[in-house]
């Protein structure tokens, strides 16, 4: 999988499939590779923040900046690993893990009230005051049996989020 070649060999495809635990089919991986090459304008083998932000649909999303911290400089392997959470074949646990990592920005395995407030600030911008946000989060935590000082773990996320209601799927367009 050279940085300037735009062809994936069968060997590459199989390796990539194993890497993402068989979540994507080979056709999907080929389609995603075309997309990766289209985003990586100069053929370096990784995508820069600016290149993601050149997609207007991405740039206008409130969580774009936050996600760029994870997405910046990804090579193709990392690219499909990240996107595998959005496949229909990805498990509930896999999707929740992705959501957990969006909240847990310092990667210490714990999501505190402040982490939740930060994400909520990205989402609601100036349309909610800091006090309003704090009120919502404290109320939500207390109702669910946590406190202001609680640190939620991945297990907590699995229990709290509604398995039936979680819809996080994007179809990869294959030719």
């Amino acid at each position, binding site marked *: 999988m050279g940085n300037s070649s735009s062809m994936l060999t069968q060997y590459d495809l199989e390796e990539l499939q194993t890497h993402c635990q068989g979540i994507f089919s080979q056709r999907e991986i080929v389609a995603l590779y075309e997309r990766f090459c289209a985003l990586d304008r100069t053929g370096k083998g990784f995508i820069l923040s600016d290149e993601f932000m050149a997609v207007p649909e991405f740039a206008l999303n409130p969580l774009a900046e936050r996600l760029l911290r994870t997405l910046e400089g990804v090579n193709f392997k990392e690219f499909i690993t990240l996107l595998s959470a959005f496949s229909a074949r990805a498990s509930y646990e896999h999707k929740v893990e992705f959501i957990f990592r969006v909240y847990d920005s310092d990667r210490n395995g714990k999501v505190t009230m402040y982490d939740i407030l930060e994400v909520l600030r990205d989402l609601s911008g*100036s349309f909610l005051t800091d006090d309003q946000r704090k009120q919502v989060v404290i109320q939500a935590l207390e109702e*669910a049996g946590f406190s202001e000082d609680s640190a939620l773990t991945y297990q907590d996320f699995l229990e709290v989020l509604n398995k039936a209601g979680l819809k996080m799927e994007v179809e990869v367009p294959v030719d």
Partner: protein
Amino acid sequence: MHKLEEPTMTESDAFPAPTSLEKEAQDYGRTFSETDLCRDPLEDLEAYPPAEPIIAEETKLLLSNLLDISPVLTEVASAIIDDSFTRCFKSNPPERWNWNLYLFPLWCLGVVVRYGILFPVRVLLLTAGWIVFLTCFFPVHYCMQDHKLRRKLERDLVVFLFGSFVASWTAVIKYHGPRPSPRQKQVFVANHTSMIDFYVLEQSTAFACIMQKHPGWVGWLQTYALPSVGCISFNRTEAKDRHYVAKRLREHVEDPESNPLLIFPEGTCVNNEYVVMFKKGAFELGCTVCPIAIKYNKIFVDAFWNSRKQSFTQHLIRLMTSWAVVCDVWYMEPQNILPGETSIEFAERVRKLIADRAGIKMVPWDGYLKYQRPSPKLTEKKQQELANAVFRKLEGKLL
């Protein structure tokens, strides 16, 4: 981050891409408005929203709703995987032929003919055209005193030059509809695929066109030859240039002697399968708008000029080494702004007419997003929706 004065960006706010939440709401709205009481309710079971789990975790509901950012994440992932804006500028290579013993040698022969015979002949033709143009244009431009005759000759010479360009690609152009004529208070608008759109149109009628300033020999043409037919060049990233253009446009349409005005309202080259949003400038001059639809047939070559991937000269060489450039040009019925219609609505209506005639798809994006980031107002709109959702969940119990 560029901080530019964006008077013409506001229309992009009117047409944001539909969010998945909006789409979901529309889907449900459609299902629930079917009030056919004779239908078996069990038939519609799938139309109803998924039931809450039987052991409802009521206490965790608010936290669950708060932490569930999956709709927003889905939109991000969707944008990363495929987005309609990038698709507008993708050069789609033609299907590769199935090679076999018979076709491959023929193709090789074709390459030899195209590069070895056609290309040199075409270059000679074009050079001859240029020589004739230059030797006639300068004397006419600088020495002729009779104003009217000079204008006529300049116009004819420019048409001739572009005719030689078009001949140099052996263009097979089919024009449909009545030829444009110089009339007051009219503006021509067309979809844009490459700079050759201008050449294809200019060789049949001497239009006065608004163009982005280019470097090199094109820039030379733009500075010295084209202003004689009334063409206006400007730099799209300069706000004061745009202001100046707006003023010149108004002056131009008032002048009965001026050539028909041609504008490409998309503001950028698109790959001839999509059409991006039109800038409203052409539609608020108080004139009749005459739409022109241009559709290239990819059979021999893709006429899309991907300015990021190749220079205009490389693009022309590619056209000159292909068999032919085939396209259709439709001169369509002139449109006037309807009473009560805003200029943005007028632009959208004309865009739809052009898209339908050329058989291309409309997308709700501003072409200038190729050069700059979307307005923060679009992000703020999403943030407002999400904030409202939080309000609703708390049933207005917020401070």
